């Protein structure tokens, strides 16, 4: 039964499996057990899923209580289609390793870029020192 037609409410999503994307970039998958008016979430049997390329790894986390303001988006997972993915699941260690490698390559590329700019006398402005209009 639609609690509030024409609005978005999490009440109908309770007890269903959800994928939650957080502001810090983490992806959580768990059963939504409880909500409140701030969209704070209680996730049950939560798993943190790390994606690197075509692989992913799951870290079981248990129960999560997420403060609403940190949620970017969340969506229900269709349990029937859940396994229907081209991605390959790997072990936790492997995915963490992959993530570390990816992070490293990104940092190195960034460093090269900054160095190249410096050589040319330019500098990328830092976000916190940007002038206002």
């Amino acid at each position, binding site marked *: 039964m639609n609690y509030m037609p024409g609005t978005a409410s999490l009440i109908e999503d309770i007890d269903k499996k959800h994928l939650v994307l957080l502001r810090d970039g983490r992806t959580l998958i768990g059963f939504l057990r409880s909500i409140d008016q701030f969209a704070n979430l209680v996730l049950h*049997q939560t798993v943190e899923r790390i994606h690197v390329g075509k692989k992913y790894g799951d870290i079981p986390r248990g129960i999560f209580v997420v403060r609403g303001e940190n949620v970017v988006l969340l969506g229900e997972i269709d349990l029937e289609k859940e396994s229907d993915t081209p991605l390959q699941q790997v072990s936790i260690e492997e995915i963490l390793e992959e993530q570390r490698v990816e992070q490293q390559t990104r940092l190195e590329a960034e460093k090269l870029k900054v160095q190249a700019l410096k050589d040319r006398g330019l500098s990328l402005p830092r976000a916190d020192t940007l002038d206002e209009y």
Partner: protein
Amino acid sequence: MFRYESLEDCPLDEDEDAFQGLGEEDEEIDQFNDDTFGSGAVDDDWQEAHERLAELEEKLPAAVNEQTGNGERDEMDLLGDHEENLAERLSKMVIENELEDPAIMTAVQTRPVLQPQPGSLNSSIWDGSEVLRRIRGPLLAQEMPAVSVLEYALPQRTPQAPEDDRDLSERALPRRSTSPVIGSPPVRAVPIGTPPKQMAVPSFNQQILCPKPVHVRPPMPPRYPAPYGERMSPNQLCSVPNSSLLGHPFPPSVPPVLSPLQRAQLLGGAQLQPGRMSPSQFARVPGFVGSPLAAAMNPKLLQGRVGQMLPPAPGFRAFFSAPPPATPPPPQQHPPGPGPHLQNLRSQAPMFRPDTTHLHPQHRRLLHQRQQQNRNQHRNLNGAGDRGSHRSSHHDHLRKDPYANLMLQREKDWVSKIQMMQLQSTDPYLDDFYYQNYFEKLEKLSAAEEVQGDGPKKERTKLITPQVAKLEHTYKPVQFEGSLGKLTVSSVNNPRKMIDAVVTSRSEDDETKEKQVRDKRRKTLVIIEKTYSLLLDVEDYERRYLLSLEEERPALMEERKHKICSMYDNLRGKLPGQERPSDDHFVQIMCIRKGKRMVARILPFLSTEQAADILMTTARSLPFLIKKDAQDEVLPCLLSPFSLLVYHLPSVTVTSLLQQLMNLPQSAAAPAPSNPHLTAVLQNKFGLSLLLVVLSRGEDLQSSDPAAESTQNNQWTEVMFTATQELLRIPQAALAKPLSIPTNLVSLFSRYVDRQKLNLLETKLQLVQGIR
């Protein structure tokens, strides 16, 4: 840790004990844990006590079918030396249970307990409460009838028929609410954050610690949870204020010596444990597993709901009397039992919570309907109803999901209510403009469709937001009684000046050019914003007019006029001298995209003179504007209001307008070799279109009014001649493609040029329909 000797001591007593034990110690150490530093550590070895307990419980599984005598004795041992009160109570308790079922009592102790971490407080708390529970459970139900639901995150339920359908919101609110208007989640007797009763079943532990990503069914094969809807969450079980056992065998004089925490733990402990199953489950599970669970359930049942108690109990007994039953009774047998009782209950229970009265009546109706629908739904599910594959698979999951419905219906309603309250608005059109508009449009569409087609009316559920009357609140500052003089309290309505900030306007000299430009642009932006607000208000007047009363209407009109004037002043720049000093102000506005759009929207509201003035200014500065518009390309939006305006202009104005547009020299003296103004105009879509519109209008005037004043005519003819000359000069390639080409231009030009040139003009301006 609770020492069993002093079970019934309240914490105060314990402190005394500590004092005695630590007489000579420092004051500091007195605050330390009695068990670590005090007599507890010296006299009592909790590890030993625990081992005793553990041994006990290992023994008991083997003794399931033993008589209660054993259980009694064990229990006595557990408690160690206790006071007589306790003994009395115990014996009474045992007697009470004996009435129900001897096997149950022993079975309760069968529950294996998690190995406690050394030194942890939790284990002992829970251990203690286990024992206490059996004593205190029914007591507490009687003693604290008004305490609301104790929340426990226990997954299991008892097979208490579709009680969870019955909306707990229909119960009276808990005494203490956090908000005066809406209900709050029930008061927690257990402090928030206390872990739930430990999971007894090891398999469950594993599940918790390492859950698999997909939903894992509890790995107990014989587990058949009751169908969805039959099961009541543990929370709900506890919430029954009135128990059929109020006529309690225990004398009410038994002093409640426990602290609220202990009490809560007891009640919590008296809750179902995960190892319990519904009778339907139990029915299929032979002997050992079944009885402890049922036994554990029974004290729960003792506290259970009105009307629900008795039917299941005999059912239980039936199960017990034939353990293990060869053919397990199907789970569906269960609901018919408590069904009629529940029906009675429901009809008696008040349908609406008192605090829902503040909801819109239609919303309340919706809520009620929803509740009924839910009940119907669940009733259907209890039977063999199949409501479609998707639904059934979903309910399938819910059925097998032992953690479902942790969030009570009441809590869902609470959240829902808060969300509805947030939608309350005194002026929904103002606060929620897009939503309102969208739904109006939808409704109009559906109404239109309905009129056309005779299909069945699609019931579109509409959110009915609570309507709140606008209340005038006058702020009255806080006054203190008995104070000398008036004390000022700074609040949001009465702010106090905190910082002595002085506004200094910058002098023009010491600023750089860039800053000046920037400031000017900023000022223009501010003016645009202000004028836009005025515009929105003015556009809204129509609606307000319709909604207003007769008396208010003249005032509304006045306001509207006033606002239109202000808009115009803003556009043209205030402080008009005899003549508008400069177009600069207006041009600045027109350089900004939003400004152009705004002017297009304002034009219909202006009087003809004012609008003509605007148009002239635009024409004068058109090349400049065209240059500035290169990136935005918003000028064409002005074409339609300008066209509308032009068709109302008198001849004189049109003539001068044309002159301005083409920057034709006033006198027909030697024409300039090049006319960059005109070139620019012609090369721009908007410019060319506007020019054509003006020409067309001129033609209209000429053709429609042959007896017009000769001076005007002459002027027009002169201008036309010059215009045609200019047009002929311009190479075709430079021309833009106009937005629309008026049809009467051919006849226009035919007056002033001969055939040859006419053809030229035609091709150049693509005036003939065929050429595109």
